[in-house]
């Protein structure tokens, strides 16, 4: 009696866990293999009996199909084992027909990738064991699918394409072809390695720039005060020579402790005293032509005439002039307030800065159109075809998708995951020489962003000549999109 009760309880437990009895298993061989066709849908529920019975019938068919369990002949099943450390499934009995397009050899054993194993489990070809117990399909989904192997969405796309008959395998960006099948080295190297990133272009500004802005301004002021007492000693009429540019920069660096970029020794620079009574007799020597921009000729400068114009009293501005002064202060900025200008140590750098600013300001104005003389873009009779003429008058240069794509850094969210080969090549398909795939697959969802030009450039570059298709997964529905490069025709006949 006790055993019978135990059996009954076990049977009840089995019911709830959806386990089939031996009798059910035996008679499964005579199950129908046909799928009933779904009828036309109706528009409005009327609550009529006919609708109710129709609905019940459809639902009953639906539950029958959904609840059906997979039953296979033991001899038809290939046994395999899941190895979580390597994220692989190793076959324990010889592979079947699927070996032609799936799987690879590793250390003498036949292996399957997790998505391949899961698909074959769903087809009822392979039984995967883990720790001596067979894995259910649910456990397969939970254990095999992960961000390190293949995600659920990616597996859905994989399964969808396989069921349609395509040959699908993993994409390996490093070799720009599918994952190498025959390997003889250690299991550790098999795991998908992260791509090495292309080193970023170094666009950082040099560190000494900021130091220059702070220091020189202050030192000039302090040195000025120091220089004046030095100068008052000399009673020479002629202005002292300007020779600070010849001072050895190394001397100044070691003695004053200024940053190396400064070439001046301010103790040797004498600033002319134009404010004292002796000033009328001074005249400034001509500056060294090296220091001047362009081809300027500056001779000696007699100070007398200038000094008479110098008013040492504080200016009293009229109200209007004060207003003007205020406006100037508010709306106009002195060029010396500009940090970037202060960073320039000579005229050449200043001109470069001005050129750069002009270029940035006039980005919409291409240099070849605005900087030179105004000339006609083309002359009659000069061009012999439409294409030539269009090239002459073109303002925008047409680009192609792969232009400068190699310089783009690696992307995190987008990656090509599968190679897809046409179904009609299955008979001749060889894993060692698969040839070029029909397309490469990248999986995304409607929740995420639409791929922008950067993403497309990067993926097309990775994919070489093969077009990339985007598979968008939305609750079991998969839509495929691809972007095609298009060139406007330029020749007309």
């Amino acid at each position, binding site marked *: 009696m006790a055993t019978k009760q135990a059996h009954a309880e076990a049977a009840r437990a089995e019911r709830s866990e959806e386990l089939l009895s031996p009798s059910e298993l035996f008679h499964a061989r005579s199950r129908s293999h046909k799928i009933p066709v779904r009828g036309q849908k109706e528009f409005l529920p009327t609550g009529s009996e006919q609708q109710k019975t129709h609905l019940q019938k459809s639902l009953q068919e639906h539950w029958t199909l959904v609840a059906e369990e997979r039953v296979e002949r033991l*001899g038809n099943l290939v046994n395999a084992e899941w190895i979580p450390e390597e994220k692989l499934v190793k076959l324990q009995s010889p592979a079947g027909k699927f070996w032609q397009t799936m799987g690879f050899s590793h250390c003498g054993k036949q292996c399957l990738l997790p998505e391949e194993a899961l698909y074959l489990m769903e087809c009822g070809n392979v039984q995967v064991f883990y720790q001596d117990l067979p894995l259910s399909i649910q456990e397969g989904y939970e254990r095999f699918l992960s961000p390190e192997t293949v995600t659920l969405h990616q597996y859905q796309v994989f399964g969808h394409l396989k069921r349609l008959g395509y040959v699908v395998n993993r994409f390996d960006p490093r070799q720009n072809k599918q994952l190498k099948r025959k390997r003889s080295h250690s299991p550790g190297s098999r795991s998908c390695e992260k791509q090495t990133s292309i080193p970023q272009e170094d666009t950082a500004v040099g560190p000494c720039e900021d130091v220059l802005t702070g220091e020189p301004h202050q030192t000039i002021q302090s040195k000025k005060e120091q220089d004046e007492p030095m100068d008052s000693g000399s009673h020479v009429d002629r202005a002292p020579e300007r020779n600070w540019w010849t001072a050895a920069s190394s001397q100044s660096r070691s003695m004053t402790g200024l940053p190396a970029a400064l070439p001046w020794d301010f103790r040797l620079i004498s600033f002319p005293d134009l404010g004292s009574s002796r000033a009328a007799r001074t005249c400034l020597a001509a500056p060294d032509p090296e220091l001047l921009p362009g081809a300027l000729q500056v001779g000696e400068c007699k100070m007398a005439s200038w000094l008479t114009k110098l008013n040492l009293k504080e200016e009293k501005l009229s109200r209007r002039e004060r207003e003007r002064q205020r406006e100037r202060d508010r709306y106009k900025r002195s060029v010396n307030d500009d940090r970037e200008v202060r960073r320039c140590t000579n005229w050449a750098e200043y001109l470069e800065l001005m050129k750069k600013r002009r270029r940035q300001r006039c980005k919409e104005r291409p240099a070849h159109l605005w900087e030179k003389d105004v000339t006609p873009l083309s002359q009659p009779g000069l061009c012999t075809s439409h294409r030539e003429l269009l090239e002459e008058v073109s303002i925008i240069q047409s680009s192609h998708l792969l232009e400068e794509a190699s310089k783009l850094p690696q992307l995190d969210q987008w990656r090509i995951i599968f190679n897809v080969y046409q179904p009609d090549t299955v008979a001749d398909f060889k894993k060692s020489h698969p040839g070029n795939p029909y397309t490469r697959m990248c999986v995304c969802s409607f929740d995420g962003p639409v791929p922008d030009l950067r993403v497309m450039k990067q993926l097309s570059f990775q994919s070489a000549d093969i077009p990339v298709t985007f598979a968008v997964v939305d609750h079991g529905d998969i839509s495929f999109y691809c972007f095609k490069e298009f060139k406007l025709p330029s020749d007309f006949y």
Partner: protein
Amino acid sequence: MDCERPAEDHGTRQNGGAGEGGEAAGAESEGDRERSREPRVNISLVGGTPLLWRAGDIRRVREEDGVVGALVGSLARQPRQNVRLGRPLEILQEEASLLLQRGRAAVQHTHNQEDEESHVKAVEAYQSRLEHSYEEQCVLALEDKKAVLQRVMNAKQNDHTCDEGTEQAMRERLSSLQKGFTLPRSAMAVQLCTARAGFGHCPEEAAFLAADWPMPRDERSETRFRVYRDLRGRGFYLTAAGKFGGDYLVYPGDPLRFHAHFIALCLSMDEQLPLCDVLAVARLGSNVKKTVLLCSPRDSGVEGEVVYSSLQWSGMV
């Protein structure tokens, strides 16, 4: 284009709607509390997506909670086709949240931490079940073969085509079958389970697992959830509508038999929708012959109502 505020209630309550009697969205009723004492439906999370694996669970949530979902796995009967798919059932985040809130479901732990002893016991149980199944199938196979032979004998007898000799031969075949027949091991039928066996239904564990479910985190998921709860409470069936440029497809009855009437778009009350988006979605709706529904929950508290506006392309004659 024609804008109405608020939309008329098209839905007629179906028997499979959210429980017996008028249940306000989100409010717990007697039926709810009673049902929450029943064994819960298992939700398995794979990469954040909620899946249902047991056929019984899938049926219950459809009949009792109006959760339709989408089947995303291979169909057991014919795995190599895409027309009809099988388990698992993928459900919406909102559906999973609602089931958990109502105590109708519990999130299943992916890796049961088994100790050594129970694992050994499980392996033993599996082996013994396999043996038992094999023995039973041997018996059934023998009976099957005998029945076939018997049928042939009867047919021959009825036809009067056999003579004494062949009858004798057949009887000998029958007896040899009885004695020497064995079912080869490779011919045994074996089940490849879809759902995982053995989830403990102890309530403390289930409650603990429900606690770490990702409830709506940002404003968008919160809006979607409230719209879902409201529409479900009115008796509509809802599925995903990414292909139609919306959030939900709204059916007046079971999607197996009826077409969808609306494409629901969830927006927060103060969200600004550019006119070109409104045009695009209205155009899409008219192309597929469905009314577009703009749904916004009113900010007043968690139990606030949802406001609906429908868009229908109409002409000026």
